[in-house]
């Protein structure tokens, strides 16, 4: 095969530079029946990178439940799709852009937004909502403040411009994210069932089109970069971060939807990681066909680019379309209208090969399946980390003097993880497209579905601390919380997507964390009947050998039959009965309280009874639809005390007075603290009109959900008594000021 250009690329240094092992190289030679040339080696190196091949994670991901009555599209496509009635589908996915966001926060986050949006409209869906799950190191460090500012303005810069509202999300802070922030972006779109387009090539002789931005030398080996840890030389990797152009993507979005609506394409795929290589071989492989292209026809930003560079470039805002033969002129006309130039770069063939030419000369020829399905699959060694029994134990003597409960509450409310994120989301256009339910204090992002009475609620959640202490339990809790947040808004969870952020999978302890977390996700999704329809894995989140907290982030989508019945966390008026659903078990392990007040990341995360959780969520959805509950808020970081305070915020200073029994256990630390700040799962604070509370409590109990009347709304203070003694007493205004001011205090007006 001497005609394949520069000869064998098999010397050890070249192979290693491409992030491939000797064994992997041998497998390539075996699959090809010959040595690859340099261009082909490049194709394999990106497609077999962890980022594209999921080679370490696939064996575990296969265990996740992906089917359900409403699932129209499970994993394997650009995004998943779930039925939402009236012939419509919710198309959604979450994806990470962690590594680029550390190297170049603004562009890394911006292109993360751009990438996931492309995944959604590629399916023929109109994107209508974005969420972000963000993790940063502590704000005390100015480098982290710079990253926060950059990521937030990058997300806004892209989403605001393209005109897709950011309707929710979550942010947590921890030292483990110091050199490795997490930027996970979720996007949801709406499509008619019959208009869903897949990333498949088919029909021998159908032309293959390239449209969008020109191809430059940016982002070459981005996927490979995302498949290695960081060290002190990471700054040198800046050139592999791409620059986003939301205007270009807006044009692509409108033009592609128009072309798809016209029925002129058989398949569409965006060029994200591994660019042209990934989009050609994946569409070919999915359709069981070959794809032949000539890179000389690819629009190029700079002269002299080699086939290797063109195939591996990760320039943003580019799409690959498989057009129906005979419809070329129509497709070109639509793109011309949007000032985009659609270029025919090749065609679908029958032989299953990715064949790359340059000015007609063959430069690479590889079976599509060799790059995709036949990528290596690893069952990497796993080992439970040592010392977990010590980690899972908290002793009273590890804590200093206990703070007064009121002071502890105020400190928690003013800590970045718990505090209001208004500083962040005010910089996002949350309302464009006029679907966003603008109620203050929603526990999930909620958008109405135009043309119906329905709305969709969505939430992203994950707690890395719980997962460090017990990855399986932490993952179960993450699924439960995301679904619970959606249910608190009154919506029935119908589908989920996951973004699994972990360290280096070649370390057995990390691989063990990963496997345990995936098992936990599977258990919870099965029990709560929310299938996983797709997602993303981000490994090698380490800097200088120090891994992030294992952070599986779960996105759950829920359906609200009547948008007008949406609930928020905010107590709507005085004189309502406050009912606690679920019960506190005095669990302080992994809590925000231990971390913020005592600097400890220890203990066992809360236990969760998934059957009870499901009963709780069903009760919430049912009670929201009948209007019996007026507000709902789950207890999360900071426990009961923080949750109650949050129910009083954004309500004009309306207070609450409650009395709860002490927790059954002291959480090995302190019974009072465990009662107030323990983070036992499956608990929700709801408010109910006094004349309906008795019936509601009875209904809850008969549904298997513990329900306790704990007090009433009213006044202007927050008061919590435990076992009859007042433990916390403060003015709503003071507490709210702490909660509101935290992020601005850190992020405004300080030297960068």
């Amino acid at each position: 095969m001497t005609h394949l250009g520069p000869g064998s690329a098999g010397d050890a240094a070249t192979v290693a530079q491409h992030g491939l092992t000797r064994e992997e190289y041998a497998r390539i030679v075996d699959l090809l029946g010959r040595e690859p040339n340099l261009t082909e080696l490049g194709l394999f190196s990106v497609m077999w990178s962890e980022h594209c091949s999921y080679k370490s994670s696939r064996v575990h991901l296969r265990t996740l439940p992906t089917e359900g009555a409403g699932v129209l599209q499970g994993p394997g496509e650009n995004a998943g799709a779930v039925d939402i009635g009236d012939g419509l589908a919710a198309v959604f996915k979450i994806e990470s852009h962690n590594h680029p966001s550390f190297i170049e926060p603004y562009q890394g986050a911006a292109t993360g937004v751009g990438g996931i949006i492309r995944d959604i409209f590629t399916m023929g869906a109109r994107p209508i909502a974005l969420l972000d799950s963000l993790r940063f190191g502590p704000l005390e460090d100015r480098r982290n403040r710079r990253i926060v500012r950059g990521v937030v303005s990058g997300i806004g810069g892209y989403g605001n411009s393209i005109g897709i509202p950011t309707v929710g999300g979550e942010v947590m802070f921890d030292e483990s994210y110091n050199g490795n922030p997490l930027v996970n972006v979720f996007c949801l779109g709406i499509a008619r069932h019959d208009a869903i387009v897949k990333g498949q090539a088919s029909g021998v002789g159908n032309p293959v089109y390239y449209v969008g931005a020109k191809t430059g030398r940016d982002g070459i080996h981005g996927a490979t970069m995302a498949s290695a840890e960081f060290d002190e030389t990471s700054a040198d990797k800046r050139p592999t971060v791409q620059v986003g152009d939301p205007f270009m993507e807006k044009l692509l979005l409108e033009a592609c939807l128009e072309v798809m609506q016209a029925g002129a394409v058989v398949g569409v795929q965006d060029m994200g990681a591994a660019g042209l290589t990934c989009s050609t071989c994946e569409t070919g492989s999915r359709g069981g066909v070959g794809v032949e292209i000539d890179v000389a026809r690819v629009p190029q930003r700079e002269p002299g680019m080699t086939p290797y560079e063109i195939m591996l470039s990760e320039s943003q805002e580019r799409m690959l379309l498989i057009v129906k033969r005979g419809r070329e002129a129509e497709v070109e006309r639509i793109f011309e209208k949007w000032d985009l130039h659609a270029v025919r770069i090749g065609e679908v063939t029958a032989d299953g090969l990715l064949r790359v030419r340059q000015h007609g000369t063959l430069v690479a020829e590889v079976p599509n399946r060799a790059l995709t399905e036949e990528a290596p699959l690893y069952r990497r060694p796993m080992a439970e980390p040592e010392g977990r029994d010590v980690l899972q134990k908290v002793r009273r003597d590890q804590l200093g003097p206990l703070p007064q409960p009121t002071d502890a509450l105020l400190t928690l409310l003013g800590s970045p993880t718990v505090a209001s994120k208004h500083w962040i989301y005010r910089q996002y256009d949350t309302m464009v497209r006029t679907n966003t339910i603008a109620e203050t204090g929603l526990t999930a992002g909620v958008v109405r579905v135009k043309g119906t009475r329905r709305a969709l609620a969505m939430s992203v959640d994950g707690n890395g601390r719980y997962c460090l202490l017990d990855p399986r339990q932490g993952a179960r809790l993450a699924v439960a919380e995301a679904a619970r947040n959606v249910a608190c808004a009154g919506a029935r969870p119908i589908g989920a997507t996951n973004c699994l952020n972990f360290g280096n999978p070649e370390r057995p302890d990390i691989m063990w964390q990963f496997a345990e977390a995936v098992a936990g996700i599977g258990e919870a999704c099965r029990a709560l009947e929310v299938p996983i329809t797709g997602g993303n894995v981000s490994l090698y989140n380490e800097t200088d050998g120090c891994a992030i907290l294992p952070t599986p982030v779960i996105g759950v989508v829920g359906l609200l039959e009547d948008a007008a019945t949406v609930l928020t966390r905010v107590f709507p008026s005085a004189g309502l009965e406050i009912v606690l659903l679920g019960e506190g078990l005095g669990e302080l392990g992994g809590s925000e309280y231990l971390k913020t007040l005592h600097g400890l990341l220890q203990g066992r995360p809360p236990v969760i009874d998934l059957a009870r959780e499901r009963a709780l969520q069903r009760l919430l959805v049912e009670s929201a639809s009948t209007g019996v509950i007026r507000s709902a808020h789950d207890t999360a970081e900071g426990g009961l005390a923080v949750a109650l305070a949050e129910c009083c915020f954004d309500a004009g200073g309306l207070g609450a007075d409650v009395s709860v029994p002490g927790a059954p256990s002291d959480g090995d630390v302190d019974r009072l603290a465990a009662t107030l700040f323990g983070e036992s799962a499956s608990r929700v604070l709801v408010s109910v009109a006094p004349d309906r509370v008795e019936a509601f409590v009875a209904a809850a109990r008969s549904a298997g959900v513990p329900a306790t009347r704990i007090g009433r709304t009213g006044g202007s203070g927050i008061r919590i008594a435990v076992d009859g003694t007042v433990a916390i007493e403060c003015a709503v205004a003071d507490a709210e000021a702490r909660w509101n001011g935290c992020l601005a205090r850190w992020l405004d007006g300080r030297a960068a």
Partner: protein
Amino acid sequence: MRFAVVVFPGSNCDHDAYYAITHVLGQQAAFVWHKDRSLAGADVVILPGGFSHGDYLRTGAIARFSPIMTAVREFAAAGGPVLGICNGFQILLECGLLPGAMLRNRDVKFHCEFVGLRVERTDTPFTSQCAVGQVLRLPIAHGEGNYFAPAETIAELEAGGRIVFRYANLAGEATERANPNGALDNIAGICNEARNVVGLMPHPERACETLVGSADGLVVFESVVHALAARGVLQAVSR
């Protein structure tokens, strides 16, 4: 009554204006592509919000060269009602139909939130159904809404009664605190001398249903329907 919603590449509130006019207000609307040269007999022209041409130069600076803008200028010169919302307002400033310019918000951040908007004048087609001093609750969503003009221009606007909207608190006071972006004199919206061209930064089209937060914006569209009806346009259409 027929509204033309002009679509520039990068407009992203075009569908929102269309939806408010057709689904909520029950009037007719048509999208007009920026490369078109005719407004196709529209009675009202809306320049919607968004990021025309990406706003990579000054906001609205490229859109003013679009072919449709010649028709918009002629339409305005003939007294036709033109409303520029957010980026549409910025385009009106760039093309000279309205005076002044936009600076970046004083804290150089994008802001999206509900603000109070005090109606200063009811003698424009887009405020005819308002009351002077009425406070509307409308969302803003912009990074460059900090209205600026030379002192003599401001004086002219003031003297001519051409400041149509001011940022204000719910009590109707145009305080510094109620000003979200640093705009001079809390100016949120102005009109031309003939009063038929109005630009404002807040988004009335996003506030036409309580489900999405406020219905206070509807009055802006109702006003123009009323104003044109009074001039016999409705009858002309129905005939």
